[in-house]
């Protein structure tokens, strides 16, 4: 077991999350992020990708519980903290770029306060300083007329603009870690590219570590240095992005890459992840679960 040093931004060690009936959503997940590193979390829907980010940020749905494992953010053990200390610690060090820009901004509040209020709360900045920071960030995500946008309601802006605003809001408090939860899924393809470029630009400028949740292998190749492949809440492969694409070790990773349509080769037939592989994996996981239960008894 690795001992957390202050060098890593995030360490997740043997994380298990379970439903009230005991069924595990995450199975002994471990991963770590170096400062300034982008790690992609890939897997199919329901693989538990988002749950890792949510448990780090402390926004798991109330029915889910962390049953075992450690989350260490900037050297601080989150599980050992009281809820209020944890809340302020997370607020100071981490931020979220959410999946759906249409529901991530409060429809009845203007954009300005939605970016500015957390800055005042987290850093104790003056309203003017927080406002200047928000305007600066909006400018950095290429929002024209940021003053006017700050004074707008979310429904007055397009989806792409809202996602850029959310990126600005995530970077504004200078977090050490950003969880990007499928930030491009809800956008159309032309906007997706811009958004990816923006996140990468800001990430490189600020040296923020990013946990990038996605199911799109194409996005993985563009943005990340490391990859964690998940299946049914279990880590299948953890490697550098280069290694994953050039020499994938796990059969599931190979199948995922093979299933990604290629724009260069449109003639190639579509090859989904084979059903036999999936049933094999499920069998393995059932065995794991039996062992896990036995060990805990």
């Amino acid at each position, binding site marked *: 077991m690795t001992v957390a040093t202050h060098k890593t931004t995030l360490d997740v060690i043997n994380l298990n999350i379970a439903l009230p009936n005991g069924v595990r959503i995450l199975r002994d997940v471990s991963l770590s992020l170096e400062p300034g590193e982008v790690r992609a979390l890939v897997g199919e829907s329901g693989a538990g990708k988002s749950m890792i980010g949510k448990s780090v940020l402390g926004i798991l749905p109330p029915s889910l519980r962390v049953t075992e494992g450690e989350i260490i953010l900037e050297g601080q053990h989150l599980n050992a903290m009281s809820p209020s200390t944890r809340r302020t610690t997370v607020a100071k060090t981490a931020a979220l770029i959410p999946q759906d820009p249409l529901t991530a901004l409060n429809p009845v509040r203007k954009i300005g306060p939605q970016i500015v209020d957390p800055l005042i709360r987290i850093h104790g900045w003056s309203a003017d300083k927080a406002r200047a920071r928000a305007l600066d960030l909006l400018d950095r995500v290429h929002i024209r007329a940021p003053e006017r946008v700050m004074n707008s309601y979310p*429904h007055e*802006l397009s989806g792409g603009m809202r996602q850029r605003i959310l990126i600005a809001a995530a970077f504004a*408090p200078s977090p050490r870690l950003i969880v990007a939860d499928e930030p491009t899924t809800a956008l159309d393809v032309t906007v997706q590219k811009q958004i990816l470029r923006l996140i990468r630009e800001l990430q490189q400028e600020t040296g923020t570590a990013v946990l990038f949740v996605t199911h799109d292998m194409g996005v993985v190749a563009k943005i990340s240095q490391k990859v964690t492949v998940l299946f049914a809440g279990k880590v299948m492969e953890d490697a550098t992005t280069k290694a994953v694409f050039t020499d994938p070790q796990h059969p599931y990773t190979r199948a995922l890459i093979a299933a990604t349509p290629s724009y260069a080769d449109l003639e190639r037939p579509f090859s989904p992840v084979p059903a036999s592989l999936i049933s094999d994996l499920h069998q393995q996981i059932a065995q794991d679960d039996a062992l896990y239960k036995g060990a805990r008894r």
Partner: protein
Amino acid sequence: MADTTISTPRARRSGKPNLRLWLPLLWLGFVALAAILAPLVAPHDPLTQDLMLERLPPFFIDGTEPGYLLGTDSLGRDVLSRMIHGARIALFVSLIAATATCLFGSVLGLVAGYFGGWWDRVISRLVDIWMAFPPVLFAVLLVAVMGTGLTSVIAAIALIDWTRFARVIRAETMVQSRMDYVDSSRIGGARRIATLASEILPNVLPSIIALLMLEMGIAVIVEAILSFVNLSISSDDPTWGSMIAEGRNAIHFAWWVLLFPLIALFLTVLSFSTLGEGLKQRFDPVLQ
């Protein structure tokens, strides 16, 4: 990246005036003014009886006496003056009772919907149990126990109808609680209670206002019903309900005693519920 999608929020408002908002406001303003200025604007004392002037018809029918615009009742009391004084009681009850009901029910609904868990279980069960009582029987029972009078009427309304607010606001709060911006607020370091106040409450507020207006209308009706069965304030005092109850006996030869307070009651209740809808639209930036 074209930032041309900023629409002007006031575009729709500059069109034709919102009748749903202004017609009810006009009528309610009129009633409120009459209620506030009752002693000044009422042409007669609402309690003065004059058996020589009993059952005078309203002004547009032959055989009327000047000065009695809407006629008199079977004891010779001026119908218009009694209606104006009745507006006082109707509005007073609706304002106090509906506000109390709204505060009590909405707070419980917000807490149950947002905090969930035990809070939700206890509050929801309480609502279920409460709603199993037949409301009219419950009201009559409450007033019978507490004694007649305005306080009892107000208490009865609040104690019966808080479940309406609790149920609706709980459901809306639950929907809002699942929104991503609630998570974002938590990640941004906001306390739960602050998140509830700054993120969820503004989204639920239009519904609270609409329900509040509806409740004001309901309070007017409940007060009228309790007056009708003589469980509100003393039957001498002019309330719309007691006027309707009295007018019932003479409906075949003096219909105006019943009809005019009934119209006032109808318009007031209708205005409240329409105003609720109008305000809901007005305050919702998305619907605008």
